């Protein structure tokens, strides 16, 4: 190789060596290596996932078998109530609720033929 070509080769090698010597290059390499070495959190391991799934299934099962509120049919008309909420002002269905001290009341009116105009 000629002297000039050798000089250019050396300049080129110095150029790349200086680039590799930059701290951000080493830092990037270490970060990348560390990203492959980090173990996933214990919670994502199969045994932990299986335990969590069992717990969720048990919770859902016991929630499902809890007694639900029953409908109460009053023999007499309920006491006068003040309407607290009206879900539908128009249309064939009206729903309103009143949390009576003894019996919470939900009244649903259904007008099969719709409201008279």
């Amino acid at each position, binding site marked *: 190789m000629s002297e000039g070509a050798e000089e250019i080769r050396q300049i080129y090698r110095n150029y*790349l060596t200086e680039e590799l010597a930059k701290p951000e290059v080493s830092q990037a390499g270490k970060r990348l290596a560390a990203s492959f070495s980090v173990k996933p959190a214990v919670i994502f391991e199969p045994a932990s996932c299986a335990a969590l799934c069992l717990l969720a299934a048990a919770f859902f099962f016991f929630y499902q078998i809890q007694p639900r509120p029953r409908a109460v049919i009053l023999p007499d008309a309920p006491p006068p109530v003040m309407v607290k909420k009206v879900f539908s002002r128009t249309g064939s269905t009206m729903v309103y609720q009143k949390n009576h001290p003894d019996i919470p009341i939900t009244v649903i009116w259904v007008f099969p033929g719709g409201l008279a105009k």
Partner: protein
Amino acid sequence: MQDPDHALVHDAKNGNQAAFGKLVNLYYKMVYAIAYGVLNHSEAARDTAQEVFLKVFREIRNFEQKSKFKTWLYRIAVNTAIDEARKKRPLESLDRRDDQDNEKPVFIPRDDSPGPRDLAYQSELREVLKRALDELSPEHRAVMVLREFQDLSYEEIAEMLKIEIGTVMSRLFYARKKLAEILSPKMGGTKTR
């Protein structure tokens, strides 16, 4: 000759991520050097180096260890970098200055005395070299970095890039000639005392 990384690669193939992390530590700078040599841009080289190791991570199970790991890694690195450079090719170099086309060659007088002036000279030379490398194609820069920095043989480079040995030599000749044309006037000049 057995691959010096055989044990680590074997563990990595079997899913040992810590072993793969060690391979990254061993070879990151080599991969970065190839990426930077081809792309001539720091950020792009960092992104490409990361992509190379992600590819290797995905494919290592299929690596049959018939060749050395390093050789396989070289091939992935240089081809990924060239592919990346081709994607960016229609765009200007990210480091290119707007006034580059109008720039006249700068005569930098040579000064052998040590100290700040020498550092300034080296810094200018680096900038000139960087711009000179931008004028080469990624394929020419690939041959340059593999031969002039990684010291690979013509045969190794030809096999890696899937080209003829003659093509390797002609690309290298062209790249050296181009750099000499741009750099030589800037390296000359009178010595100052």
